[in-house]
């Protein structure tokens, strides 16, 4: 898993590549904590280069969503495809994160 954060005014794009799972999700934690601490208004999580996600990876993104939302902000997910799309659909998260 590799990731990149790009800020553009009020919006942050967080692009995650590779596999976001029980092994790699903890590596993302400091970045997610920083986004919450900075009270970012809008975060787009770009998963177009994500190959695999598991329930730990989903948990990390859902936790970010809830914390940012509690501060009045918005988290969207973009670029879902293949295995990650199948998981988001099953957990009915595709609509939560794309509206």
């Amino acid at each position, binding site marked *: 898993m590799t990731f990149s954060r790009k800020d553009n005014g009020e919006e942050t794009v967080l692009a995650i590549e590779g*596999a976001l*799972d*029980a*092994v790699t999700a903890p590596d993302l934690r400091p970045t997610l904590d920083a986004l919450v601490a900075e009270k970012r208004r809008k975060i787009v999580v770009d998963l177009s280069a994500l190959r*695999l996600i*598991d*329930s*730990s990876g*989903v*948990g990390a993104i*859902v*936790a970010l*969503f*809830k914390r940012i939302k509690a501060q009045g902000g918005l988290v969207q997910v973009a670029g879902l495809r*293949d*295995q990650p799309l*199948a*998981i988001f659909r*099953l*957990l*009915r*998260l595709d609509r*939560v994160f794309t509206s």
Partner: protein
Amino acid sequence: MIHLRLPGTLRYRDLAVRVVAAACKLVGKDGDLQKPERAFDDEVVSAFSEAWNNIAIHSYHDQPLGEVQIEIEPDHDQIWIRIQDFGASFEPARVPAPDLEALPESGLGLYIMRSFMDDVTYQPGRPNVLTLTKRLPDRVRSAGRAAGVSRRGDRKK
């Protein structure tokens, strides 16, 4: 039949998942499913990943040197996977289904396994035995038969 035995830690997760993904490609008449049949592989890989996590995180929580034994039978119309571990047992029937509306951050593993596989069984004991079975959708099975293509590599088998 494919037999795999390896340490039940997160370190070996990627290797185990890759074996299952490669075995999925051997399922079916043509042995090389095209999209949208990739969905079959994605769902099996998803379910297996959760099973592996649960063993590494829950079952072998305090026994870091525990082994996992995996048998995989990729067939013309289904895949069958048996996963055995020698760690802590649990009672799947006692695990409540997640309330998806509440956006849970955990407790999704068993739900993913049960949703994506046709059959999930768990027998607690020494070893604990988990089986995952998934059949190809009918439409794919008949497409494979109609095309009459041979399995990859059969030629020189």
